[in-house]
């Protein structure tokens, strides 16, 4: 078994992943957002379909003008100003704020296609598997290791309950806060967004407090 990477290699690796994703996709990296969209794929697919339908602002304006002309019997009454494309039910603030001040090549008003978010999650699994096998750390286990056993619980039933409850808190909390360690922690803090700085400080501080409780008290 090999040791883990030194801190500087980890820092460079995480930074390169985030920078690469941002520059190539024009979008922020956010794993919890990818989860959210994949899990609500029916609604997201419908929104995507509507986005595609109204993607061409000029075509939309022309269609509205034609419909207006047909309804009122005149071709001059309709506004030809392009309408805003369909917005999602949950506005994506990171992309809608001060877009004008950003470099055009790294801004986008539309979320990435749904299938690409699913690909991101599956690729994380594959990347982790390759790393585990290549480093000799891959072992099928029915527990979470000695650390979890010593600090949280050695009982398998309690372990399942704790993992489930922990997972629910992670899922609920990341979506309520609007991001996770990749979205707020890397992408958001990298942009010095106040909301991401606050969220990261709070979730990291809370994790520190709870971990000290697990280590020192429980």
């Amino acid at each position: 078994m090999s040791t883990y990477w030194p801190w500087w290699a980890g820092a460079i690796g995480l930074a390169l992943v985030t920078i690469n994703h941002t520059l190539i996709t024009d979008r922020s990296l956010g794993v919890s957002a990818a989860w959210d969209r994949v899990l609500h794929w029916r609604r997201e697919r419908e929104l995507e379909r509507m986005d595609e339908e109204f993607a061409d602002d000029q075509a939309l304006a022309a269609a509205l003008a034609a419909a207006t002309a047909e309804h009122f019997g005149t071709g001059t009454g309709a506004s030809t100003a392009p309408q805003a494309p369909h917005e999602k039910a949950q506005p994506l603030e990171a992309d809608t704020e001060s877009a004008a001040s950003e470099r055009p090549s790294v801004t986008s008003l539309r979320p990435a296609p749904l299938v690409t978010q699913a690909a991101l999650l599956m690729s994380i699994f594959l990347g982790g598997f390759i790393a585990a096998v290549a480093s000799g750390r891959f072992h099928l286990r029915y527990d979470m290791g000695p650390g979890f056993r010593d600090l949280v619980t050695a009982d398998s039933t309690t372990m399942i309950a704790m993992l489930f409850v922990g997972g629910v808190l992670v899922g609920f909390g990341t979506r309520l806060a609007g991001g996770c360690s990749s979205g707020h922690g890397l992408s958001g803090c990298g942009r010095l967004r106040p909301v991401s700085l606050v969220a990261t400080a709070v979730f990291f501080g809370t994790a520190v407090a709870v971990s000290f409780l697990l280590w020192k008290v429980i």
Partner: protein
Amino acid sequence: MRTRGAILLANIITGLALGYTVTNIGFGDFAALNRMFTFQDLRMLLSFAGAVVILVCAFALLRVRRTPGRIHAGVIPGAVLFGTGWAISGGCPAIPIIQVASGYLPALITIVGVIVGIRLCRWANARYFHLDRGSCGL
């Protein structure tokens, strides 16, 4: 505007690199994670903080978006819940995936929990909170 194929390829590369990197840093190891949160071992903490420092410099140089963001009512309670869940289960949304990939089969339970939590949040927000939560990632 990037093409669909380019975004798909970029996300595959990002996922592979992220999974590979995070696994090799040790974020999937509960004991190592606890040592980071209790400051017994600063290696992982420095990895994360170092990445943020590099990103701040790189994004500034590249003039990548500098949006102010909005601290809505869900940020702090959401972050508290997330931090608690992360410390208990050892997983943020990406970590249970690499835990399973490393052979920690019980992490599947964490993934189920994450799925339930995300769906529960959207339902609860639509029904009770009505928060414009925004999103960091797209």
